[in-house]
Structure formats: C-alpha cells, structure tokens
C-alpha cells in the first residue's frame, strides 16, 4: 500500500521550513533553508528538499499541504493556509502535551501564545512593529561584532558577565555596541548583554499575555543558548526547547492538514 503524507510549509521571513508527516503523525522528513527574499522559490525548494528524503518527489503521495508564515498565501496548490499562531500552538502541544505557553522568536517577529489545557489558543500577542526582540536584532549585532550568528549563544553563556545595553531599539543598540567596543569592553560581555536585551523585550511581550509554565521556546532564536539562559532567568522558570525548534510551526501545519483529511475521510 502506498503511504499517505501530509506536508506543512512555514515560509518565514528568514527561513522556509517543511515538515512531512505520515498518517500516524510521525515526522518522516523535514528541511530548513534560508528564504533569501524569494518566498515563492524558497517554498518550492524546501518542499522538494523534504520530499526527496522519503522518495522520488513526483512519487510521494501528499494528501494535504498546509502553509503558514508570512509567505503562506504564495504557496502553490495548498489545501489551506493557517496563521503561525495556530500552527505553533498545534505543533507545540503535539510535541509536549502539558505545554501551556509558547514563545516563538523568529526572524522578523516574536509571539507569545497561551494555550488551554487541551492545546487551543487562549490568547496571543505579537511583536511585529520592531526588530528588537526578534532574530533580526541578533543578526544585525553579529554583523557589527563580526561573530557568526550560531556562536553568539555560546559566547554569551560562557561570559559570566554582561554589559548593559540600555536601548531596546535595534538601530540605537547598534551604535551603543559600537561605543562599547570603542571603550574596550570585552566582546563576550557585550554579546551576553545583547542576549539579555532581546530576552527583556520578549519577556515584556510574554508578560502581557501572562506567562504560564510549562513554557516552550520555538523559532530559530531558541537555538541561541544565551537567549534561553536570560529568558528563563527573567521568567523565573525552566524553558523547554524542542529538538528542532525551527520546525514547530511547519509541524503544526502538517498536523492540521492530517486532521482535516482524517476528519473528512471519517465523514
């Protein structure tokens, strides 16, 4: 018998993510690629990448395609599109059933979502007007400091001390970092201070919704140990990080596709 698959596509501002699941809701393959400003092409490519892992692209039987993320409407032959809020909630709940609070820090926005005990969205807030408190903030700073983005978290955690970054605005914080460099402040201290600044911003967003543990952190920035350290310190609670924090939204989208298909077939 041919296997049936469900595809979730999360086309974000920084990265495009694809997750392929089977009827048993298991993740069969996934892929993450940089979006690079071409949402449509990135969507096509990440879809191919995920399908190729399980077989020949034209032979994989995908029953439903659900898209999410800022580029969700651009995805071709989608079954439907769903917002990131609903998808992240869905994905997080499936991964850890007791999670009540999801913080997603993506490339251009951050979100805080309160879940009900049965995994439905109770309340949410988004920060989408300002780059501070998003991955973009760290990206800009990694360029200023000439440190690869992936290394920022470890440098911050190992620093022990932090420099105070008072500005919450990315543009002003950039000049603040340059002035700290000019004063000869140690780079690890600055890096730790930057992770703290992002965390403070996100903490403010989360507090507006009302932080309720257990908490899961998703999105690319969840891979940054410095932010995880500061955020859990600010919240005063442990933060859970899924194995692949970037694909939680795409996973949620795939699950929504599977659920609507299975509901339909019962009827």
């Amino acid at each position, binding site marked *: 018998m041919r296997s049936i698959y469900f595809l979730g596509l999360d086309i974000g501002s920084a990265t495009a993510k694809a997750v392929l699941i089977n009827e048993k809701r298991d993740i069969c393959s996934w892929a993450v690629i940089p979006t690079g400003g071409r949402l449509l092409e990135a969507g096509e490519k990440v879809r191919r990448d995920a399908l190729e892992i399980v077989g020949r692209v034209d032979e994989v039987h995908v029953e439903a395609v659900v898209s999410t993320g800022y580029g969700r409407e651009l995805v071709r032959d989608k079954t439907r599109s769903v917002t990131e809020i609903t998808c992240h909630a869905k994905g997080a709940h499936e991964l850890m059933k007791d999670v009540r609070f999801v913080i997603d820090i993506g490339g251009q926005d951050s979100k805080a979502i309160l879940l009900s005990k049965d995994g439905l*969205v109770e309340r949410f807030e988004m920060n989408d007007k300002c780059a501070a408190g998003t991955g973009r903030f760290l990206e800009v700073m990694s360029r200023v400091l000439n440190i690869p983005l992936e290394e920022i978290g470890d440098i911050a955690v190992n620093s022990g001390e932090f420099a105070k970054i008072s500005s919450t605005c990315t543009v002003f914080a950039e000049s603040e970092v340059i002035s700290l460099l000019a004063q000869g402040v140690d780079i690890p201290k600055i890096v730790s201070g930057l992770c703290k600044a992002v965390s403070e911003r996100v903490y403010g967003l989360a507090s507006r919704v009302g932080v309720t543990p257990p908490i899961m952190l998703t999105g690319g920035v969840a891979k940054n140990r410095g932010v995880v350290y500061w955020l859990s310190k600010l919240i005063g609670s442990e933060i859970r990080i899924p194995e692949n924090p970037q694909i939680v939204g795409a996973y949620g989208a795939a699950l929504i596709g599977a659920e609507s298909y299975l509901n339909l077939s019962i009827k």
Partner: protein
Amino acid sequence: MAQKVPIKTTAKMKELMGFYYMMAKAAESDPEQKIAWITSGGPVEILHAAGVIPVYPENVAAMSGTLKISDEICAVAEEQGFSRDLCSYARTDIGSVLSGKGPIMGMPSPKPDFLVCCNNICGTVTKWYEELQRIFNVPLIFIDAPFQYGVKDRPEAIDYMEAQLRRMIDQVSEIVGKRFDWDKFMDTLQLSDRAVKLWREIQDLLRHRPAPMNSFDTFIHLAPIVTLRGTQGCIEYYETLKAEMLERIEQGIGTLENEEYRLGWDNLAIWYKIKFLSERFSQHNAALVVSTYTRSFCYQAEDRDPSNPIRAMSADYLAGYINHGLDFRERELWQMVQDFSLDGIVMHSNRSCRAYSFGQYELARAMEEKYGVPVLLIEADQNDTRMWSDEQVGNRIDAFMERISAKKR
C-alpha cells in the same frame, strides 16, 4: 458571494454633509455670519442657539483620512516642528491650516471667528486649540471637563460644568454681539436630545441577527451626529436611516451573507483602512456590530434631570466613554458583549489617541479573564497610514478568528 445590499441613506448623507460644508465655506466671506471651530465633544447647542456655524476639525481630519490625503497634510505640520508622536488629527488639522490643503473640494475648513475647546475627549485638544488660537489670533473658549474616575459622575463636577457652560453663553453672546436667545437654546437642546436618542436606537438595531449594517457603516453614518447635532436636518437624516434599518431587518438583509461571528470594536475608526478591515473580517464571516466609538456620541448621563435642561446638558458632556476610568469602561464593554451577543472584541490600540488607548491592555485582561471574552489588539493609527501594515494586521485578524472559531466548534 451575494452582492452586498448597499445602504440607500448613504447618498442622503453625502448630500447633507456636502450642503453643510458648502454653507460653512460660504459663510467664510460673510462678516455677519460667525464660524466657530469646536471639538467633537463640545457643547455645540450654545453655538446653534447663537446662530454660529460650528466646524469640527476632527471631522474634517477624518475626511482627509478617508480620502487618503492625511499623510501629506500631516507632513506639512511635521515640517513645522509638530512631532510625529502628536495626535494625527491635530497634525492633519494644523497641517491643513498651514498648507491650505483639505478635503472640502481640496480646500481647508472655513476660517474660525472663535474657538471652542472641551477637554472631555482628551488633553491634547487643549494644546491643539491653543495653537489654533495663536495661528488665527481669535478668542478661545475653553471648557474643562473633569475626568470621572468612578463609575458614578460627581455632582460637584456637574456644578463646575454648569458654571462653565453659563459663562460660555455670556462669552458667545459677547462675540456675536447679540442677546442670547434662551428659547432657541431650549429648542436646540430638544433637537439634540432627539438626535442622540435616534442614534442610539439605530445602533441598538444592530443587536438583530443578522445585523442590518456593521460598525464600518456606522463609522460613516456618524458624521451627522458629530457635526449637525442640534439641527432638524440631523433628526430627519437619522429617522430615514432608522426606517431603512427596520426595513432591512424585516426583509432579513444582513451585512454579511452568512453572519457567523459578532464582534465589537473599541477606539476610533482607522479611516484609511475601512474597506480592508471590513473585507478581512467578512472573509471570516465576522460582523462588527457595535463600537464604543460610535456610541460615544450618544451618551446621556444616567441620572440627568430633563426638567433642568442646562443641568442635564452639563451632566451629559461629562458622561462620555473616554471621560471615564477603567471601571466604567469595563462595565460598558461587558454590557456591549451581552447586549450584542459578541464573540469577541477588537481593540484598536491607536497611537494618536492616548486618552482612548490607555488602559486597553488592562481592559483586555479583564474581558479575557473575568468574562472569557476573546480580545484582539490591533496597533495602528486613526489617520497616519505610516503606522499601518496590511500584512501584519491581516495576520493578527486571521489568527484571532482561527482562535474564536476553534473555541466555538
């Protein structure tokens, strides 16, 4: 989707408002005819009784917003040093005065002979009107409406308002150089009272399922109650609109083909995005059926004494939604939810209007936690399109409606 049945009375409004602005514009060159600029919550009945034509900078600014010319007009004010953080109505108005551009056939409002400012809607109007006074060098009559922190309005505040309104009568009489016509004033108060009641009755008709029109329509039909309150034309207009709404209810004509969800709106309209918002909510079969904004123009004090009209008027001009603290606002919102069977509330966190937006997070929390009513906050601005993003607001609306529909299932 079936074609939306248009509201016929809208054509009549264009006529009514067009006539009013033409008349006001013509009065500019008539030295005998006095014109006063007045805030939207100002005691206009005194002006009508004294034969003065009132002009509302806020209404004119909203027209600029709807016509999408407010950004370029605001930019003129900003070039003169008015901060972008100031209210966009104030910037639109001052920019219009400075540039000579405006929405009335491309022209700005007719110049004022004097100004009337009442701070029952916000504190910004105080400085805004002082600025207008400086520019035009005309008298400014200022009515200070004390903010009411409690649910019940304080009698000494009503005393204070009454004293100021009586003083305003003297000031206006002196400016126009005529004895004040108390009979005409009493008639005007009655006309105003009738119009306010009609406007409330019309909005209450939206309790009906399906609602015969939505809040985006009421934003448009708000203009007469703001600008022509106290005139016969205003009453006739709302009588026609009310009759049409009753007819639509009888014929089962709704604002949506399939009204699945009912929502409330808080704060000013986003004038340049009425169509976008209306369509986006329609896609989710959600009708906005009530707003604190349009209801702000039909508040009457709870324990007003109709046998003492000037005292009742003093109480009414304190009674508005945004002249009150959070306990009052919470009570009003919860009442709206019950009366209009709302599935949620959309709050426009309006960068221009601090007086309105302050406390929204607290109100949202109360609605969510105490009453279980979902609340969506949209960050935008009533007139400044630079504070807006289709994509971001659209995304929030979609997520909010997904949340509501998941709960309802």
